[in-house]
């Protein structure tokens, strides 16, 4: 079994940092969803597709961070 790149004590701040970033991105997505829903219900559909693209980008970032987290072992 090969030694991990980081000791557990070193991994904890990394994990906490990733967790913080993921939460931050999810809050951004939540705000984006409520703002888009409000615009859509008001009849403004111009923002719908850019907002969806931004939300998918956020999801991609989160998946990348999660993948990195799982590869820390």
């Amino acid at each position, binding site marked *: 079994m090969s030694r991990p790149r980081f*000791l557990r004590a070193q991994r904890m701040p990394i994990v906490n940092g*990733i967790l913080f970033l993921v939460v931050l991105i999810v809050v951004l997505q939540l705000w984006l969803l409520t703002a*888009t829903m409000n615009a859509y219900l008001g009849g403004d559909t111009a923002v719908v597709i850019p907002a969806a693209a931004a939300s998918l980008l*956020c999801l991609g970032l989160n998946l990348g961070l999660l993948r990195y987290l799982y590869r820390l072992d």
Partner: protein
Amino acid sequence: MIQKGNPDPTELELQTKPPDGRPQAEQPRWRKDFPIAWPQDEWISRRELTKFIVLTSGALAVGQLWIVFKSLIRPRGRPFPEEVVATVDELPVGGAKTFTYPPGSPPRLLVRTGRWEFVAYDQQCTHLQCPVVPQVELGRLHCPCHDGEFDLKTGDVLAGPPQRALPKVTLEVRGSQIYATGIEENLG
């Protein structure tokens, strides 16, 4: 998790270290009976938490795509039918009446604001769907649930928590009959 073979002593200590930091001999019996690798446990719980937050992120992205889907299938510029919703004599000046237009839609509110002046809007407040009440003498529509106020002439928000104006029903008066001819999505 304790590795078999020749584990690194430092790592082994980290894995078996109790949360209060005291030596094993001073730990309560229950903790000796059920030793938990606390640092690892904590780390895994953070990882699991992150996984579920990312699942939430996926759900939010799906919600966003649902809005795109709804906006794509929503009919645009569809001609609304013309329908008689009331007669002029039916309402006194300052009076109001609810109707549905087109049939099966949420209730709309027709208000007579003058001798030959009529306005009609969605009856449901754009905040939390409470029915609005016309206050013709004050020139506004009032939502009693959270004190939302809309302009009676335009449907725009005057005060309170609503963020969007009331959708307006376009009307035409022909003879003694009032026709609804369409819906304006008011962005004001």
